[in-house]
């Protein structure tokens, strides 16, 4: 059995998932919590974005299950059964991508390297040419002739598989919906086709189709070629971008998780108690927000760096080390970004505490703590919700910027910021290497766009000013 390894960020991610599930159960039983989410579920834009986000989350979660693989029989020694290297489930699934390392740069779907080398031919003659890749398109006899047909054929097979998978999934969901609504399967299909269902299933299915198409084509092509090319050391760029998904998600979600308790507690306390409590908290956050965030982050990360170098023996593996640095980055980003939400909550609480129902509770002799939990917190939750989803995309982008200036995640860790950072040199190279940057941008852009569209839908549903009327 492989030995399971739970990294710090893994633990927090699973905690977050547990919290979300718990909240989901709670919300299901309370009408006022359920109603806005139902509005979200009816929004076409929101649900379309959710499908895309779901794919990202799936990638992120599979990448968060870490383990130490078993050593091959031959290398085992007494007591040492496991490799020292920590892998994730995603690594395992992407084994072909991970292991098919070329020598250096190669363009997307290429069969030859991107730089000329001296090649010794069968007759002993040295020729300076682009050598064939070790893995990419290695099965082709004559790349010049077969390449286009092979790529097209592989893509078509992928598309067909995608279609089959899509039909299967859509069929199951439609059958389930038909069963629930008490309609026949055919009627349910009609309902969905003419977009008459409450939840916009048509949009969801279309998005699902697009996602499956992309996934299956990429999978088929990725095994035979390097779909997005390789980087300087010949590592597959598709693999790197997929690994970066987790980093982006972790930064986007854990930072909020870390800052939320402080922001909520401090914001509500400042607004509710007023007086010196308010003064102290306001003083803290005005001071904190007037220090340039980047400086604070740089200082903290460099300190951590020094600590890690001095205590190298405390970290069992490179992955653990990089993980700690990631967690630390989340904490630092959290510390610098809670002030905005705190300020919002303080203002809202100032308003709420003057409301009659809070006064009525005071007149009953209800304790301050109970009033905060029962009356204030539920009534500011919509602000928390809106700012959490809005902050997410900002944080993903922040990671890219920080890694670009070298104070982000560990250089050994895959992240879009690191990819963009290394692309700095590649862009200056002649001929230009564009695919690393492009791949990072496309993946990041899709995630941020989906997150933004989804947060728009959430805000529309939760913002009381936009509610009503209809």
């Amino acid at each position: 059995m492989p030995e399971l390894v739970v990294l710090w960020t893994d633990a927090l991610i699973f905690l977050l998932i547990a919290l979300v599930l718990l909240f989901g159960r709670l919300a299901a039983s309370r009408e006022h919590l359920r109603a806005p989410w139902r509005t979200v579920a009816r929004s076409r834009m929101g649900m379309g974005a959710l499908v895309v986000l779901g794919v990202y989350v799936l990638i992120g979660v599979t990448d968060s299950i870490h383990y130490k693989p078993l050593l091959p029989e031959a290398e085992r020694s007494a007591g040492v059964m496991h490799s020292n290297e920590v892998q994730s489930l995603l690594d395992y699934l992407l084994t072909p991508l991970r292991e098919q390392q070329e020598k250096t740069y190669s363009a997307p779907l290429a069969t030859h390297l991107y730089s000329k080398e001296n090649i010794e031919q069968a007759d002993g003659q040295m020729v300076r040419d682009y050598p064939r890749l070790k893995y990419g398109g290695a099965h082709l006899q004559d790349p010049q002739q077969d390449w286009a047909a092979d790529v097209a054929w592989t893509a078509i097979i992928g598309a067909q598989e995608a279609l089959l998978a899509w039909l299967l999934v859509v069929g199951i969901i439609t059958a389930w919906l038909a069963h629930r609504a008490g309609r026949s399967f055919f009627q349910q299909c009609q309902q969905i086709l003419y977009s008459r269902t409450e939840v916009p299933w048509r949009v969801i299915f279309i998005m699902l189709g697009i996602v499956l198409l992309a996934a299956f084509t990429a999978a088929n092509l990725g095994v035979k070629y390097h779909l997005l090319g390789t980087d300087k050391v010949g590592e597959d760029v598709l693999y790197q971008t997929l690994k970066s998904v987790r980093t982006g998600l972790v930064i986007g979600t854990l930072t909020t998780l870390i800052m939320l308790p402080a922001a909520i507690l401090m914001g509500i306390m400042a607004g509710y108690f007023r007086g010196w409590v308010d003064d102290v908290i306001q003083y803290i956050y005005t001071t904190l927000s007037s220090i340039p965030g980047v400086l604070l982050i740089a200082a903290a990360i460099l300190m951590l760096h020094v600590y890690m170098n001095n205590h190298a023996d405390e970290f069992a593996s490179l992955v653990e080390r990089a993980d700690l640095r990631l967690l630390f980055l989340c904490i630092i980003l959290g510390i610098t970004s809670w002030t905005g939400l705190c300020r919002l909550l303080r203002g809202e609480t100032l308003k709420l505490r003057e409301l009659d129902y809070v006064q009525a509770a005071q007149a009953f002799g209800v304790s301050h703590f109970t009033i905060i939990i029962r009356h204030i917190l539920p009534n500011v939750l919509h602000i928390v919700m809106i700012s959490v989803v809005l902050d997410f995309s900002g944080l993903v982008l922040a990671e890219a910027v920080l890694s670009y200036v070298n104070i982000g995640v560990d250089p050994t860790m895959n992240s879009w910021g690191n990819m963009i950072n290394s692309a700095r040199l590649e862009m200056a190279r002649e001929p230009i290497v564009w695919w690393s940057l492009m791949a990072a941008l496309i993946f990041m852009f899709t995630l941020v766009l989906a997150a933004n569209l989804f947060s728009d839908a959430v805000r529309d549903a939760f913002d009381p000013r936009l509610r009503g009327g209809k």
Partner: protein
Amino acid sequence: MSDVLLRIKNLKTWLGTGASPVRAIDGIDLEIKKGETFALLGESGCGKSMTALSIMRLLPPVGRIVDGSIHLGETSLLDLPENRMRNERGGRMGMIFQEPMTSLNPVLTVGTQIAEAVCIHDADPQQDIKARVVELLKEVGIPDPEQRFSEYPHQLSGGMKQRVMIAMALAGRPQLLIADEPTTALDVTIQAQVLALMKQLQQESGMAILLITHDLGVVAEVADRVAVMYAGQIVETAPCKAFFQTPRHPYSRKLFQSIPGRDKRSERLAVIEGTVPPLDQAFSGCRFAGRCDVVMAICHHQIPQWDQYAEGQGVLCHLQGGAEATVEPPASVKEHAVAAVEKSPPTPLLSVDGLKVYFPIHKGIFKRVVGHVRAVDGVSLEIPVGQTLAVVGESGCGKTTVGKAILQLIKPTAGQVRFDHDELTQLRGEALRRRRADLQIIFQDPMASMNPRMLVHNIIEEGMLAQGIGGQAAERRMRIEQLLEQVGLPASAADRYPHEFSGGQRQRICVARALAVEPRLIICDEPTSALDVSVQAQILNLLQALQQQLGLSYLFITHDIAVVDYLAHEVAVMYLGRIVERGTVAEVLDDPQHPYTQALLSAVPVIEQAGRRKRIYLQGDMPSPANPPVGCYFHPRCPQAMDRCQKSYPKAIVLSETRSVSCLLLEK
């Protein structure tokens, strides 16, 4: 040329689309003659404001006019293209709104805003625009118009802002002025000023006024003709005098009966049972049938026809000419007779002595205290067991602060609050927490006083839990259901959210919540002023019945004299943080001694022409409590002020056992 200025025929305005649009206005006809004041009377949600917006064609995006015609003079307003309609708005038709605070742009000076209206609608190149603005300001009775020209809205009081709004509406020299609840947000003394101004302007310019209001008193004061609206239809039209003598429609009659007052003191107020039917349906019978007490079989399945029984008088009812014959209210109404004001033994339950609440004013970087807002400045009062003391006064006089200071929701700056031998201001922590069960509060806005995210059950339970009464969960549940029944709600209400109830029902829930901890004194902070007249009657009935059953004492904070007259035993009149006059209801309301009380009472619009007091118009507004006048606080506005009044604040002069007045006029 006829003398009809505005003619509306079969106007239908619907809100929303889809399967069941809300028929906000469902076929109304009305005519307004030149130079008359036409009042559109109705409760909230009956479509009065929608009518005004339809005339101006300023409906919200979801609203649309589906049928009918509106003619202003010879022009058909509904056929005009938008650019010509813009000339009519503010040109021949002016409009003023309910809330003067939000109707003016806070970042522009008053002069600029009026000048804008002048430039658009009264563009005369020879004329100096500023001169015209100043003239307008003078016309609406604003002192120092030249200086006011360059002031911002926040520098003006509410009454002044409403005058500015009227000046803007007058800029285009309109033939029709639509006034949508123009005085609802104002105090009675200011309301009297504004109504008098509108009347005077009308006489000078001969314009017609469409006055939209829910206040029968205001209608009686100023209107020439009245139309009563109910559920999107006009149910009765009549000249003002005839209407107040004999209202014909059962709904109109019910409205009159539900107005509280002295003469109804010993009886339950008539209430209109049930609620207005939802308007998203097509009706097949009379809309009022479900709530009418003279309902006949025909009412339920046949839509009544408009019955024009005299020139300019009509009623929408199956009873011919309305229901003159059945004016006598059902006998059962009287059964709840109160044993009138019997003298209870003078054991005060609550006695407040020299209560002061000052709010510090901070200034500068170090937030030094530079002064105080004297919200409550030495108030003394007593409430005996089982009696009601009403505190009346205009907004900003500190009456709500008194209530909250008694409850210790706001810490008093000085003074004593003795409740049943306990000094509340000295109580701390657990002792105070336990005492809180005895004193409860009901707020003005029932929606804001309940957490929208809690079930009614949890809302009522909260106090019981905090006070640790009511035993186990099952017992509490029984008690809650019992409380809900006591306030006239079904037990099933416990498992619903506050927003599922109507305004009156919500206020009942608030009463139930207060009762849950078995209080002995309830502070009612304007509990009915956010409600319609007919709903107000329900709540007042409930409060009175509870007082008899449970022997509760009330501190009733209000600005509505009619409610005081109906419910209270004693009255205290407040002005600028101090009580200027107090006594029993009969003493104070029949024979007011303080000039302020006299002015306040005279400003209240009354329905009976005979009972109208001689109107005393107060000049100006209430001064700021941060900087009260030297001497008697009232002297700058007092019509009977003397030199001595500026010297020192007059002491309370005790006239009888129950009566005291703070005025130098009464000093011998």
